[in-house]
């Protein structure tokens, strides 16, 4: 799966969580721009994990601050 495919699928997943309709760019941050709290993060991460059949551990989540980082992390994870 290409990074573009990953991007497309995650864009669809993020929609219900993007309550304020923020424009999603690579530098869009989950904490500041999207204002995700820890519960939202858990639900969103679970959706991605199920979609791609991967694990994104809390250690890995700590390294992911914005959308672009998420796409590239998931792309790497689903490839391995």
């Amino acid at each position, binding site marked *: 799966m290409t990074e573009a495919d990953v991007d497309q699928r995650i864009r669809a997943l993020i929609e219900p969580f993007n309550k304020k309709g923020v424009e999603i760019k690579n530098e869009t941050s989950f904490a500041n721009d999207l204002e995700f709290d820890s519960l939202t993060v858990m639900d969103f991460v679970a959706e991605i994990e199920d979609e791609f059949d*991967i*694990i994104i551990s809390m250690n890995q989540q700590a390294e992911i601050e914005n959308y672009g980082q998420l796409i590239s992390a998931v792309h790497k994870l689903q490839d391995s």
Partner: protein
Amino acid sequence: MTDTITATHTPPAGDLFSKFDDLIQTRETLLASGVEDPFNLVMEKVLSPTRAVCNGRETILLGTYNYMGMTFDPDVLEAGREALTEFGSGTTGSRVLNGTYQGHRECEDALKEFYGMDHAMVFSTGYQANLGIIATIAGKGDYVVLDIDSHASIYDGCAMGNAEIVPFRHNDIEAMEKRLRRIPEGAGKLVILEGVYSMLGDVAPLKEMVAIAKQYGAMVLVDEAHSMGFIGENGRGVCEEQGVIDDVDFIIGTFSKSVGTVGGFCVSNHPKFDIMRLVCRPYVFTASLPPSVVATAATSIRKLMHGANKRAHLWENSRTLHKGLTDLGFELGTKEPQSAIVAVIMPDLERGAMMWEALLKEGLYVNLARPPATPAGMTLLRCSLCAEHSAEEVQTVLSMFERAGKAVGII
């Protein structure tokens, strides 16, 4: 309030306390509304496991985790006094150096007997027991799969151990299984569960979860802090009650709840368990419990083995309080009473604090719990029952809740 920082105070650049500004603000707003500080209560006198004097008022204690009411048991007190006289006030040393007295051994023997397990290891607190065991057995490259609502000591143990941490939705069997299935083959796996979750007082589906964990070759650690002494035929906890205690690799527990003093422990049947005493840093690099504490703990644990009547009364209390509060119109954390914790859900922190204060003025102490300790951002008034609460006391408690709830406008 001379010692609080005001909002106009400008910190010097590089003040490492800046990160707490939001919390300081929340706290000040709360106190400015005039309520007593819920996190700064002083017990001036303690009259019994269920009564104390707080702010000059005699108060019923309904938020102490003193489930079995052992804190004033005459045999327990006598054992403590004797040890204090015979062995002194403290050990001044680590368990692996000069800090293991006869009393520590006797305490571990009592635990082995209580749980019917081969090994027992006593730590200075329950927090350290989780911190030490988890951090030591789950290291870099291993995976820890845990319930998202796990206690802070479990998360801190995970952070200290450098394993990959994989949380799943609270009590969700399928979510747990999915995560176990995705772990790379050959990696070490530890599943961490709690018997009773202390915030809402709900019980885990251990029967199903432990079976699945074993099916995926994971080791299982269960924290039974809030069940010891009164759940399961022998009071060994939820894993005993649900018939899976033999499949659990490690049980973590505490002396600061049903046992009625302070300290933590891990019991296990793992044949190599004793090596923990050399490699577990929160066990090695701290002083051991004072002789009086281990003597009271050992005596209390042995008495808990024969506590069937007290146990039955504790359950009666829990059912009466749960039903009474439900009938009054309060929203509770569980539909049915599952443990000795009854959590009353508050609409928000402000009204939770008002309700807490109204109850305190009625002469009732409960725990006010709020995020981040609580799940889903809830504010809770947590009631924990004691086997020493009389049936009349529980009725008194209900009338206090009724008056306070109406005064604050929650019911």
